[in-house]
């Protein structure tokens, strides 16, 4: 699956982290600002509307010393980003 960042999110890199601020259209939506850790920020960077999730998993596996469940962690994180409306499947 290929994902693209949603236009309703403002993101900014702060050194090793990325902050996500949803653009809102109702006071009922005014709930959260998200700060992504280093790995999450790298995944966010890799979501570009071109790479599929398999490629992102492989890059994270290579760059971060093979954590035990890379695939589950990356897919769980991508699902979280999709749930908050930060990304959408193409």
């Amino acid at each position, binding site marked *: 699956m290929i994902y693209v960042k949603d236009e309703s999110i*403002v993101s*900014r890199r702060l050194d090793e*982290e990325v*902050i996500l*601020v949803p*653009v809102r*259209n*109702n006071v009922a939506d005014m709930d959260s*600002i998200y700060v992504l850790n280093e790995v999450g920020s790298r995944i966010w960077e890799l979501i570009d509307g071109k790479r599929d999730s398999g490629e992102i998993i492989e890059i994270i596996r290579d760059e971060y010393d093979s954590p035990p469940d890379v695939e589950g962690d990356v897919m769980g994180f991508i699902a979280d980003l999709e749930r908050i409306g930060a990304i959408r499947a193409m």
Partner: protein
Amino acid sequence: MKIKIGGISLSLKRAGNEAIKDPCYRRFLSTEGGRAHITFEDCKNLPDKRYQGCFDSPGLWSIAFNDHADFCIEVRGGSTRPIAFVQVSVKEKKGCVHIKDPSGLARLSRYRRSIFPCLLPFHYPVDEVIFINILPLYKGILLHACCINDNGNGYIFSGFSGAGKSTMAKQWLNADGAKVLNDDRTIVREIRGLFYAYGTPWHGELTACEPERVRLRAVFIIRHGSKNSIRTLSLSEAVSGIIARSFSPLWDRKGMHRAVEIIERLVRDIPCYELMFRPDRDVIEYIRSLDI
């Protein structure tokens, strides 16, 4: 008449002798010559249909933009029927006020900081919504914070409602060499690479509303505590904490980008702390003793 808040001026050309009644607001009247950042006039026509609604504060106001980044605020004041429309073209430095229901203006007087008759656009919520939209264009943000000028050192104490802004401001009221510039809403602007905190007319229960600015020395995100203590915030903690306590254009992607950029520069330049504080005057000496 012209007002100047946070170094940004709005003027209103209107026939007749209407005047701003709010004594706090009157302190921000400006006699400076030159063109205001936005000049308002009355307009007879309703806004055209090219505005696309993008944020709704149910029953009170909504904002819409057109393709030229002009915006239009619809004021409802607790009703489904609009009371007024206020359109702003930042590019043209012009605005217009269309009062659709003059009798409805009385409804606005129910809201905080209201002294009837209200004079749009210099009245809640229109004034604040205008400033929220235009401040990032002038390297500024509006914070939910009280602001102290302590012998030339600007401190802002930011927090959600109930965090202790008014309590903090009270401690400084009679402190030697200190002045409370505002106890609820503070504008911060970057001017030629330096950050300044400005008092605003949008005060809290202390009615502190000084039309002055001070060079900013530290930002504190405050919480009540059993003793006075500080913790230096990480970059992301400070940026996210300040965004959450700001009145930023959450409905405008470009405006929000600008606001986040300004807040990041603020945090990189000015020390930002979490402050737990006891509600007594010891906090003044505690703040003054910090090596900022």
